[in-house]
């Protein structure tokens, strides 16, 4: 085989590989675009339909927005056609529960993780193993006993019952522990002891600031989890003034057949997901990074 013919074969091979790559890329991008359209279509319909009147929604479908957005907004906020919808109190309750829960989860998970990481007390290893073991137990098992206690003590319909349990969050503890292991040198704590800092103050003033990136990620995740939580709150809260947004949506669903203004239903859905969507779109990069750091070992 001469050199010339060899290079011709090589060229052909190269060209074939290039064409193959181009075809593969076309297929890949088409696949991605189809999936993107599929995902976004739900949100598109949601936004478009929140701008339509009840009559428009009940007649013909169109992909174009209408002009009833503010009417629906004001209706949903001030003149809801469903007795269950009270956006203001729903938002207020959800916000109280989600904010306090996520703050408590983050603070006490960090404190617990720091306690296990930085000190050598008796039984430390057993405790560390214990927390890992309970991480596996689905929270659902507690629901029967929890409701029984809450009913007996007459503490249902109280928001703090939804908030306080978040102090013990094994998964967040695990994440914080991993983070401390990777970032906090024990010498630093020694140094602050030399300066005469009290151990608790050392945690608040030196350790917590170091954990800021981890706290930010876990704050978002625990906030979203609490904001979206439906099962336990649904069992514990019956008072209409105490319902959080997911419970409200559940009640609205049972109420939704025919009686309720359709435009308002779309608007209520939009409003209840909007805060999380906005935060997500701003912080999506770090949120997506945070997904794997907690769930995959290593």
């Amino acid at each position, binding site marked *: 085989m001469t050199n010339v013919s060899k290079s011709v074969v090589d060229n052909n091979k190269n060209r074939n590989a290039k064409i193959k790559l181009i075809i*593969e890329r076309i297929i890949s991008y088409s*696949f*991605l675009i189809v*999936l*993107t359209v599929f*995902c976004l279509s*739900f949100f598109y319909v949601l936004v478009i*339909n929140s701008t339509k009147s009840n009559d428009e929604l009940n007649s013909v479908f169109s992909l174009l927005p209408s002009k009833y957005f503010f009417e629906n907004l004001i209706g949903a906020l001030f003149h809801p056609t469903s007795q269950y919808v009270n956006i203001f109190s729903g938002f207020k309750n959800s916000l109280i529960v989600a904010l306090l829960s996520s703050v408590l989860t983050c603070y*006490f*998970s960090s*404190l*617990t993780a720091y*306690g*296990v990481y930085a*000190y*050598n*007390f008796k039984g430390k290893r057993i*405790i560390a193993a214990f927390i890992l073991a*309970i991480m*596996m*137990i*689905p929270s*659902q*098992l*507690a*629901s*029967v*006993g*929890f409701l*029984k*206690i809450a009913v007996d003590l007459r503490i249902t319909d109280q928001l703090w019952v939804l908030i306080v*349990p978040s*102090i*013990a969050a094994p998964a967040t*503890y695990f994440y914080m522990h991993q983070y401390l292991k990777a970032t906090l040198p024990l010498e630093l704590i020694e140094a602050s*002891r030399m300066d005469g800092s009290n*151990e*608790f103050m050392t*945690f608040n003033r030196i350790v917590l600031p170091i954990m800021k990136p981890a706290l930010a990620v876990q704050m978002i995740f625990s906030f979203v989890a609490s904001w*979206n939580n*439906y099962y336990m709150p649904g*069992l514990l809260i019956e008072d209409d003034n105490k319902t959080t*947004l997911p419970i409200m*949506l*559940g009640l609205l*669903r049972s109420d*939704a057949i025919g009686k309720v203004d359709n435009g308002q*239903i779309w608007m209520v*859905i939009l409003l*209840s*997901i909007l805060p*999380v*969507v906005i935060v*997500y779109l701003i912080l999506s990069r770090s*949120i997506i990074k945070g*997904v*794997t750091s907690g*769930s*995959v*070992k290593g």
Partner: protein
Amino acid sequence: MKAISLERKEKKKKVTYDRWGLYFIIPFFVVYFLFTLIPQLLTIFYSFFEYYRKTVGVYIGPNFIGFQNYVNLFKPIDSSGTIDILKYFGNTTIMWIVGALPQFLIALILAVMFTSTRLNVKGQGFFKTVFYLPNVIMASAFSLLIFQVFGRVGPINQIIVMNGGNTVDFLRQKTSVRALIAMTNFVMWFGNTTIVLMAGIQGIDESLFESARIDGASSFKVFKDITMPLLKPIFIYCFITSMIGGLQMFDVPQILTAGQGTPDFTSKTIVMFINEVLRAKDYGKSGAISMILFIITGILSLIVYKITNKD
């Protein structure tokens, strides 16, 4: 002598510091015992008792009845011979599988695509943001959204009617209700799975891919012989956690069917069953169902633990 006392002093000092570790973990454990462990033990405890509300304010029990609650669960209620718990367990499993199969298939394709240096997909940040978005949205809001979209006068039916078809009652037919629940779970979770699998693939030694490429291995061969075997532990971990999550399925079917599991309880899940029994304040029966679910998830968790600790 001096040295010894100094050493002792230091030891003593260290011990006094270590006490703080215990103080710091106290709040976590107090809350855990009060709000999780004791309720869990009570759940198990009541599962062996006859204890339910007969009418408002009138409770029967608690009377110890051993395993009777468990036995009753596996007895057919009526002449048709259906055993509720098995039916609901079957519903849950079917709906989980129908959603999980496309979820894992598509997540795997996406993960391979995104990590391929040859394809070098642009705009990954955008795509990942879109695919993960449904996961941060309230399941209850998403379910109500699906209910609206597929309702009798929803956009899908309007399109069908516009094209000369008849209105389809998506929410009254077994297959379509189940399919909608599975689809909702799929949409909510495939982005999450993609991201976890991607991290798994990125954890594989890059030089393995490099040498395979130099040897002229095809993309499929690289996937089959390098990516998949090395991704297996994470893939299985993901799959079993998804299965555990799937068994706890509640929000989506509950909201979509207004807690009814329509039609004819064919979309009612185990946790919907617990929820219903618990709302009626039957602590014994709901405790027993919870225990059964717990044992099943426990076995699955054990498998996860075994797999993740193997390497």
